[in-house]
């Protein structure tokens, strides 16, 4: 037996960098019911499997460029491959085509949650919902004789920067942000037919993104910020920036260079709480619920933006 370790994920020809975990799950639904005569189940059956590939990355710009805010289609042109490296006797990935892959050609690669804390690199959780061509073919193909792809260096990372939101002539600056979390709110689901083991369809019935920001400047809440009843916001006057660290780790890329991430949103902002524990500083939590403006998706992501 040889050990193995998560190595990479490839979408189409793009090797996603900066992964911090990789989970391939089959999510079997197993029925095993007891009937009269014995407490033990007399028949156990797998009624369904809903395979998923889930992973997180610190290379959020590259990852968001793939997924956008609503997801990227996994198909024959842009397949999804999860790589697990076989570990050699020296403890490092072995040479040659000896590694394992899980390949899927039907599904949707979704962004699930983007998180970024003060002075921390942003991280994006992603999940691919996979389905079958016909309900009979397994959505995932396993191979054990595969070479590893070339990894991109994980030195392109972003962290919190300025946040402002509102409408024309009433833009609020969110002071002293401490954390940002974006739940992309995808309601994507796979569906099957006729008791087939594997789903053969996928639908995206809802996308309801929610942004949660915490900060220690209470001015964001009140007469000069967001009133208690909430505040409408639009894309043109909302900007959440994630600034890019210099690739050598010394400081940041200049604000005017179009290498930062800008996220805009249309929807409703409301302060959910002003909270403090003991004698520690209080924190204000702002929640933004995205909605459609009639043209654009609720979240707009530009992974090559300057900071205004």
């Amino acid at each position, binding site marked *: 037996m040889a050990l193995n370790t998560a190595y990479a994920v490839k979408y189409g020809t793009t090797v996603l960098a900066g992964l911090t975990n990789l989970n391939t799950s089959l999510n079997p639904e197993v029925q095993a019911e007891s009937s009269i005569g014995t407490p033990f189940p007399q028949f156990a059956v797998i009624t369904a499997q809903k395979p998923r590939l889930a992973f997180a990355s610190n290379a959020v710009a590259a990852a968001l460029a793939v997924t956008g805010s609503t997801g990227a289609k996994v198909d024959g042109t842009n397949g999804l491959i999860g790589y697990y490296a076989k570990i050699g006797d020296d403890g490092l990935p072995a040479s040659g085509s000896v590694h394992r892959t899980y390949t899927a050609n039907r599904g949707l690669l979704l962004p699930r949650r983007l998180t970024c804390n003060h002075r921390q690199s942003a991280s994006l959780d992603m999940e691919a919902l996979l389905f079958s061509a016909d309900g009979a073919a397994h959505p995932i193909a396993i191979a054990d004789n595969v070479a590893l792809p070339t990894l991109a260096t994980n030195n392109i990372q972003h962290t919190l920067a300025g946040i402002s939101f509102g409408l024309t002539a009433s833009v609020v600056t969110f002071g002293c942000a401490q954390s940002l979390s974006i739940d992309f709110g995808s309601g994507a689901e796979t569906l099957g037919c006729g008791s087939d083991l594997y789903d053969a369809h996928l639908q995206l019935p809802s996308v309801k993104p929610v942004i949660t920001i915490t900060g220690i400047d209470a001015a964001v809440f009140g007469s000069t910020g967001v009133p208690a009843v909430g505040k409408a916001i639009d894309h043109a006057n909302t900007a959440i920036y994630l600034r890019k660290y210099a690739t050598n780790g010394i400081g940041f890329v200049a604000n005017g260079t179009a290498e930062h991430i800008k996220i805009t949103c249309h929807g409703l902002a409301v302060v959910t709480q002003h909270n403090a524990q003991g004698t520690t500083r209080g924190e204000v939590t702002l929640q933004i619920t995205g909605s459609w403006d*009639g*043209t*654009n998706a609720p979240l707009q992501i530009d992974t090559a933006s300057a900071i205004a």
Partner: protein
Amino acid sequence: MAKEKTNPAAAAAEVAPTAAQLASAVKSVMAIIGCGQIDALTRLKGLPASRVIQIASLEDANKRKEVVTLLYS
């Protein structure tokens, strides 16, 4: 059954979008659908070149709402 006629001359006259036009069209599709760049490009490859150029032109003219109609027609 009548055989569908093709027009080789018209096909040959189809002008491919420039890189700038393609970038504008990608930007428009990404904004409307919320998808990533690769998906937007894939969608655009499924459209006639003239439609892609039309989308780019509307995007550049700040008429994204009309692109929505165009995308689904």
